[in-house]
């Protein structure tokens, strides 16, 4: 049943003709509704519109992240080991701009930087008495040209992926078996994965996970996961090598009714990590272990009034998030929502690494004290025939925000800077206000369009945050569904300047830019078949959005998928 609902949701989201990305988790590379800055598929700063605090979304722990990947101290959808719907699929793509025949006419000094491809193939079989098999190989070499020279010295080889020699940010292959019937789901996947992790120092650190084994079990209101990773770290230039054997997992009871009252729902769980490090591992976990016990609750004493939150703790950290929300509907046409949101905690991500080891420095990835964050939000929506208008606003106060206390820089090569220091706090109040407006139009099943625009302003005694977010953004979308079988989707975006203050000796400005995404899909619903071609980040300048990262270039990829 759960798989069926997931399939329906996937299908609905596909029909709504949103622009696809290379692989799950790369959405920040094509979003503008907030501040989204991408260094590579395995590292980006993602801070959506109206978000409170100066941190990015993937830095803050939440129960939703139990199925995501922990990359150093951030959670990432990518590389996703989530089992797909029963289907067979393949996709190929490229950062466009290889020379091909122009190469014959071009001297080596005038040669533009080589563009890099992407490749994916996979299947999940139909169920046989509930049993199924699956396999997936995928790697995205996009966003890997600028880091190639430094990373090649670290690996000492160009053959550091399952396919090709571009040193992609991730390269993953796995095979697995599963069982899905009634309310029971069980799966075990095993594979090999190459990853480049972005340290707080600004280095890219190679990690080969071989094997990585992930097992998941779901029964009614219980989710269990157990993961084993044998990680090999290597820096040939520094003659360093290390290994980590890690067991991690979780036990989770999602929301369920409590106390004979349908007004209260509760849930909870436990997450854990155990590591055994040998040699140069670049990261360290305090006491070689991390636990996180948490509870969550939702209470609706009267209709449209909701109180919800979760709280967790371990031997070192604690984190509480709660929200109060009142929703007022007037007829079918207008909807007003007001909410308060609070966050208190000693660390945004208590499951993350404790240290990063860089030369003789040990970078502490947590700080003493705690942060407090208070936010008020409003959301007004009005519908008139096929037109929808929305106005949203947010204001927040934050004290103790996590930041980085940079104590020094070292230049690795031209304009590639590594930093020393520790994660610390901004012990003064930061205030922020943001607003956005949305106008959407729907014409039968044929056409839909929307325009969203937003702005944000931050104030405080301290203004040198890790990232100074964009102040203005714009998003225009238009989708056609012609004859219910040809989908044409566009989105045009603008993001104003953003700034990295602490990863570069001089403030690193990311200039504002326009970009356009477009996707064309032929659907064959009767046959479960689809063909899609997608262009991403067109019209923009090639900007390096993160210090030591890679340029966000124009990319094209095509996908063929047959569902069973």
């Amino acid at each position, binding site marked *: 049943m759960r798989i069926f609902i997931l399939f329906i949701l996937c299908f609905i989201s596909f029909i709504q003709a949103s622009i696809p990305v290379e692989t799950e988790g790369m959405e920040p590379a094509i979003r503008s509704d907030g501040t989204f800055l991408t260094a590579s598929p395995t590292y980006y700063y993602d801070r959506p519109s109206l978000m409170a605090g100066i941190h990015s979304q993937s830095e803050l722990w939440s129960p939703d992240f139990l199925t995501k990947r922990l990359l150093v101290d951030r959670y990432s959808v990518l590389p996703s080991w989530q089992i797909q719907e029963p289907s067979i699929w393949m996709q190929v793509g490229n950062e*466009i701009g290889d020379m091909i025949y*122009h*190469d014959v006419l071009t001297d*080596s000094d005038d040669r533009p930087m080589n563009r890099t491809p992407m490749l994916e193939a996979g299947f999940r079989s139909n169920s046989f008495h509930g049993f199924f098999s699956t396999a997936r190989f995928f790697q995205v070499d996009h966003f890997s040209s600028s880091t190639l020279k430094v990373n090649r010295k670290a690996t000492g080889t160009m053959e550091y992926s399952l396919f090709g020699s571009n040193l992609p940010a991730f390269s993953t292959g796995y095979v697995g078996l599963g069982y899905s019937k009634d309310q029971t789901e069980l799966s075990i996947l095993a594979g090999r994965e190459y990853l480049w992790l972005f340290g707080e120092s600004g280095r890219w650190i190679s990690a080969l996970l071989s094997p990585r084994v992930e097992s998941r079990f779901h029964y009614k209101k219980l989710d269990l996961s157990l993961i084993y990773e044998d990680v090999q770290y290597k820096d040939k230039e520094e003659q360093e090598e290390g290994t980590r054997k890690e067991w991690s997992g979780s036990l989770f009871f999602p929301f369920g009714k409590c106390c004979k009252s349908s007004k209260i729902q509760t849930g909870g769980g436990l997450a854990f990590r155990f590591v055994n490090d040998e040699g140069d591992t670049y990261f360290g976990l305090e006491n070689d272990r991390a636990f996180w016990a948490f509870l969550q609750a939702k209470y609706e004493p009267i209709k449209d009034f909701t109180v919800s939150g979760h709280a967790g703790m371990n031997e070192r950290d604690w984190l509480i998030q709660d929200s109060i929300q009142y929703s007022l509907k007037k007829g079918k046409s207008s909807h007003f929502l007001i909410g308060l949101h609070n966050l208190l905690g000693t660390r945004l991500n208590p499951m993350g690494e404790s240290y990063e080891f860089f030369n003789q420095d040990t970078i502490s990835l947590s700080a003493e004290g705690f942060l407090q964050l208070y936010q008020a939000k409003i959301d007004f929506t009005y519908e008139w025939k096929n037109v929808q208008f929305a106005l949203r606003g947010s204001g927040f106060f934050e004290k103790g925000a996590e930041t980085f206390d940079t104590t020094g820089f070292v230049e690795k090569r031209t304009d590639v800077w590594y930093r020393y220091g520790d994660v610390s706090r901004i012990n003064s109040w930061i205030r922020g206000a943001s607003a956005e407006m949305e106008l959407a139009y729907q014409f039968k099943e044929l056409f839909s369009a929307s325009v969203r625009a937003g702005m944000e302003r931050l104030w405080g005694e301290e203004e040198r945050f890790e990232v100074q977010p964009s102040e203005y953004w714009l998003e225009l979308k238009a989708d056609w569904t012609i004859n219910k079988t040809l989908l*044409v989707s*566009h989105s045009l975006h603008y993001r104003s300047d953003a700034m990295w203050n602490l990863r570069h000796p001089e403030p690193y400005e990311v200039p504002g830019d326009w970009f356009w995404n477009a996707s064309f899909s032929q659907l064959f619903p*009767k046959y479960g078949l689809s063909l899609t071609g997608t262009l991403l980040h067109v019209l923009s300048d090639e900007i390096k959005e993160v210090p030591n990262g890679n340029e966000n270039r*124009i990319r*094209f990829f095509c996908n063929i998928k047959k569902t069973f």
Partner: protein
Amino acid sequence: MKIPFFLLFILLTFISGYTAETEEKDYMFSEGYLGLEGGDAYPWGTTEDAIQPALFGQGNFTYRYWKNTYGIVQFGYAYFKTYTEFKRFPGVHQFHGRVGLEHQFSWLRPLFLGAGFSCIWARSDGGDQEDKGPGVMLTDNESEFGTFLKVRLPIWKNEKYAIGANIYWEQLWTLPEKSNMLWIGVFVQRRMW
């Protein structure tokens, strides 16, 4: 140049979206054709100085998508000779694939107009990978995407077979500038269902 092109594209998509026929009947895959096509490919613009025109061969699969619209899938091969003054390698193997749609407008009968995406894979015929001079990237596998516009001219047909000609303008998204090529081919196709 980018912005006017973009605005024109958006305008065309608006027009095509609003003028699209609403299908009363399901034509999808109601007809399927396999074909063989051969002809000449002519580099056009700067790449004329890099490679010579070449013969090509390709296989075509055409299926009915809507009432007057057909889907096309093509795979083919061409060997492009370099000029004699370029000593590094004598030619380049190119495999190509295309996916797109072609439509017969009532005002343009019997011609079909088509468009879609192209993908090519190229590799030099020999050549030393250690020499970093011009052409070195082609000594390893290279691939690129692009778009094409095409015109199909039906010449003869009976119940099972058809003969016709295709003209393609293909533009690959290469650097330092885009690569244009004109393809002219004659095809024979057989209706499979």
